[in-house]
């Protein structure tokens, strides 16, 4: 660990580190603010890489083991970058009994993915959620931040196909 007086420099001169610094400052650079800080890193950079974990650990004067332990304990933190598009299928009870497992299976088959994985070209990340609290619309999936309710597999695949087309157009 490093003495408090030493100034810890961020891993790069990326401006987003200032947001991270502001979060740590708000919590008085104490370890209590670790989860808040990791939230900010993830929001700013999309995931937590080794450099960011080292930087946060040094800044909060926390052992790296604690920072790594916390970031692997909580489901929301990801140590890998996500794909360009994300699809989160809700596997809560209401969605489960309304057919979410088969919905997920068909998406998995279509893209050759398992839950929690990203396609090799980084196009799509497929994830599952515990419960999104939109049980009235079961089964639910969140595609790029937009909630799609009362979904069947066909519709879900169509929406994902549309994402691919958008990307093709952008590339062309």
């Amino acid at each position, binding site marked *: 660990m490093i003495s408090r007086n030493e100034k810890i420099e961020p891993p790069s001169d990326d401006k987003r580190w200032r947001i991270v610094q502001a979060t740590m400052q708000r919590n008085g650079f*104490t*370890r*209590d*603010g*670790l*989860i*808040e800080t*990791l*939230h900010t890193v993830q929001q700013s950079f999309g995931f937590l890489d080794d450099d960011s974990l080292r930087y946060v650990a040094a800044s909060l004067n926390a052992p790296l083991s*604690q920072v790594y*332990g*916390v970031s692997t*304990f*909580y*489901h*929301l*933190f990801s140590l890998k970058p996500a794909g360009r598009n994300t699809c989160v299928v809700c*596997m*809560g*009870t*209401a969605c*489960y*009994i*309304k057919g979410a497992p088969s919905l997920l299976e068909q998406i998995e088959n279509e893209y050759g993915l398992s839950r929690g994985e990203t396609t090799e070209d980084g196009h799509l990340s497929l994830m599952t*959620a*515990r*419960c*999104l*609290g*939109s*049980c*009235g*619309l*079961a089964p*639910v999936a969140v595609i790029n931040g937009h*909630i799609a*309710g009362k979904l069947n597999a066909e519709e879900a695949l169509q929406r994902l196909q549309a994402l691919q087309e958008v990307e093709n157009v952008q590339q062309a």
Partner: protein
Amino acid sequence: MFNKLEEIALEERGKAEQYTHTINVCTAAGCASSQSDAVKEALENEVRNHGVEKWCRVRGTGCMGLCAAGPLVAVEPEKPDEVLYQYVKVEDAGDIVASLEDKPVERLRCSTDIPFFTRQKKIALENSGYIDPESIEEYIARDGYSALMKAITEMAPSDVIDEIVASGLRGRGGGGYPTGLKWTTVAKSDGDTKYIICNADEGDPGAFMDRSVLESDPHRVLEGMAIAGYAVGASQGYVYVRGEYPLAVARLKTAIRQARRANMLGSGIGGTLFNFHIDIRLGAGAFVCGEETALIASIEGKRGQPRPRPPYPAEFGLWGKPTLINNVETLSSIAPIIRNGGDWYAQIGTATSKGTKVFALAGSINNTGLIEVPMGTTINDIIYEIGGGVSGGGQCKAIQTGGPSGGCIPADYFDTPVDYESLAKLGSIMGSGGMIVMDESSSMVDVARFFMEFCMTESCGRCVPCRVGTVHMYNILDKFSHHEATPRDLVLLEKLCDMVRNTSLCGLGQTAPNPVLSTLRYFRNEYVEHMVTETNGSGPVTKQMEVAQ
């Protein structure tokens, strides 16, 4: 200061009176995910197009309850005869605005005479759907913060606790521990620094009550926390919210800012000497953090692992200080109790369970949504009257309450009144309020496996019975669902249930076997049906004999 509150209330009511018509659009999560924001915008445009903005306003409100029929729009002419519209689309906005001076649009109309609305009694949700959650003025106009002012100006902290004790309120997070007793313990604990924590880490799949309260009426929760702070002698509170609820977090942040500006939070609240600050702490997706000691660890920035109790958080909690932890729904019942008195609240409900309870109805049911009913309402009334029966015309097989810690209640017991004791007697728990209806197509073994998978992945790994036991139980249940289980597996499963229940460190492990035990109790035949069918191999037969011995 009272006057200042009244001033705001009067001004706000005056403002409301300028309008003969108010169009309320539900902007809580359920309706928002069916594009109620676009509907609201369309209505605003139409109001301008029709040139009626002088006497008609459009506002976004909290949850109206009937999430299945969203987006919901309510038109308030002269109260209480409001007109409710369901499944409203952007294209319908013109018709709705045009109909204001005429008859309502019948094709969109949703009757408010149905039991779904008439059989409910709203206390925790009384403002949901009636106020703009992002306006403190509207909250104040509906008696908001008057309970806090009453407590800190007219009552001693012990009087406040007495009212809560008299109300008979019990923890709505699932445990059912008497709230008054908890407050008394924290108040009596030594120490200058104490904390209030609002547990909004609603992790049960199928439960969305807390989310709805936070999104529809955030000030109510803040007021409850401040009153609790006054009663037990705390000046700092934390709301621990799930990271998965971004809208709830945003509305809470707005509410805290507004309350500070109105001097209802912060230093010298309402001109008195009482200080109370509230900060938000974000969860990061760990079910176990609903357990109080794990939640405290998480607020302290650590892995959310529970520790043995005692000492209870009431004596040794956040940073070692006495800490009061209450659930969102519990805290949102506080203000009405202080306003109307504990005796008023105690008149509602059954002998041991007072007041009302919010349930999230979901699954194979027609009226999916959020309801609040007096304790003691029978399951039959909830499912068939309020819930409108099973969707798709099927038969209801069972309901599941309490999420992964609860159990399944078969249809034969639906005349049971819903209260803490009755549900416990049936092998389930009240839980936080998720109620999932399952029709005949649901396999109970599969449901048990689903919840065990949940507990297995959510186990924090601190104690062996839960970490290892849940994996083994899951493996056995998996064998059942693939028709590979033997009678011996059934015996082993029951043994494991007993062991994990009695030896786990925290509530997660202690209650993890509940879904298995309750389905075994009522649907044992399904487990038997799921055993190996062919007995031509010698294996299963010998195992059967072993069991017999």
